[in-house]
């Protein structure tokens, strides 16, 4: 990762400059050797720009929200920021350690116990064994699954599964946390606990970037919001202004 500056200093936590991401849409969907040979050297594909020329900066210690309709490119942009996709144009500079929660509990092995999965998941998210061990009690406590921690996670209820995954992810203490639509996990009490955790996060100068369809949540948590439409940035700025404009556009479309 280039351009690393220590947390809490001047300068932006995230800089995106002209980020574009395209996908190839193949007319023939079946990926078999036969179809590749049949169509010969002719490549039958269209380029689809899921994200086009997006630039923004997020200062340290902010919660930055991404809103937009389904298919507007939010998740693609988020995955590009999380390094899962590589941008086809432009660049992303992140200062500090990045952790992404695009899906909680991805990488859990159903046959392994909650305890074993905490260590596995922690290391997938970039922690060393020692670091996980130091946070182990906190993670278990946060998730509220103490009684079942030595049971295989396949026996967990979906709520427990998600809570455990979420607990591991928030305790990785990254400088930048990337979150996709997962704040709605668990019951009311758990959501309240998560909200507090995020507030604590940004209070420590960490940066959160999140996608949500809940405008209530966005208003509640974000200082800045970007509105994505058809792969481009439609608006960016203070939360209330952007959310209001977005709401107005939805209303005018549905009436």
């Amino acid at each position, binding site marked *: 990762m280039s351009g690393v500056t220590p947390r809490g200093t001047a300068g932006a936590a995230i800089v995106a400059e002209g980020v574009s991401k395209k996908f190839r849409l193949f007319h023939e969907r079946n990926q078999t050797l036969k179809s590749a040979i049949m169509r010969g050297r002719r490549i039958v594909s269209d380029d689809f720009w899921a994200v086009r020329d997006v630039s923004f900066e997020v200062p340290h210690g902010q919660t930055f929200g991404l809103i937009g309709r389904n298919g507007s490119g939010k998740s693609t942009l988020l995955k590009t920021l999380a390094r899962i996709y590589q941008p086809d144009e432009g660049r992303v500079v992140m200062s500090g350690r990045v952790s992404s929660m695009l899906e909680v509990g991805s990488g859990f092995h159903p*046959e392994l116990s909650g305890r074993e999965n905490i260590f*596995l998941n922690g290391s997938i998210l970039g922690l060393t064994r020692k670091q996980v061990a130091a946070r182990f009690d906190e993670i278990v406590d946060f998730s509220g699954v103490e009684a079942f921690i030595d049971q295989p996670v396949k026996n967990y209820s979906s709520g427990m599964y998600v809570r455990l995954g979420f607990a591991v992810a928030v305790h990785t203490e990254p400088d930048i946390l990337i979150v996709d639509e997962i704040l709605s996990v668990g019951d009311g009490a758990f959501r309240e606990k998560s909200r507090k955790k995020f507030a604590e996060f940004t209070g420590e100068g960490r940066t959160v970037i999140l996608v949500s369809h809940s405008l209530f949540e966005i208003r509640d948590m974000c200082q800045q919001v970007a509105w994505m439409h058809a792969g481009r940035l439609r608006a960016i700025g203070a939360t209330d202004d952007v959310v209001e404009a977005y709401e107005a556009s939805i209303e005018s479309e549905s009436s």
Partner: protein
Amino acid sequence: MSYGRELIATRELLLNLTMREVKGQYRRTVLGQLWSIINPLATMVVYTLVFSLLLRFEPPAGVPSGIDVYALWLMCGLLPWTYFTRVVNGGVASITSNVGLITKVYFPRMHLPLSITLSTAITFSVELGVLSIALWVFGGFPLPWLPLVVVAVVILAMFATGLAMMLAILNVHFRDTQHFVGILLPMWMFLTPIIYPFSLVEAAAERTGAWVVTVFELNPMLHIVQVFRTLLYDNALPGPLDWLAAIVAASVSFSLGYLVFSRNERRLAELL
């Protein structure tokens, strides 16, 4: 950060993914890790029955070990081969069977095929340990050769992993690959002197021409199996040509696999 340094920096993840494979494999079985011994034993019994008792293959006795047991001779070649196929089959599928992980979290993807190589190596070591004891019981003395066996394991692992990494990338583009590999590997096994002695190939060459031997010797696995067999069954130092062929094949395979994989891994998430 270069790819190699990133791999080293995240080595703990490799360890954890390896443990995931090891622990997950035999969960909910009564016999647990014993299965990793039962599997090769069952194969040994069937092959010995067919090829030694019925077809009367007679491999040469070990020199200087003096062991003359077909089943043991077979296992000295079959265990390395089984390791090879497990690494290739597992490695090829390692990307396509971890879609959930690859599309949701960033980490160096090479850890996935590498974790198959390592977790399978644990099983392989146990098997080799049991085999060594059996060889010792039947009059051999493999102990002083075990350090060189470890070297041979590393060579075999590199050869298999390189192949697995190239095929894993190909498999993302064409899922035909894993089915193709499933057909190719058994054929490859029968073209490698594992269940029959190399003397049978030489006998055939006398009838059809010396080129047969040359073609067989182009197979890297022949040399790798020969290294294992000489060390374990004969308790002797393998010939320099076998070592050389094995090392060259392993280096070429691993470097190519590493190159192909690291060049393509950033695009894996969108291709899946």
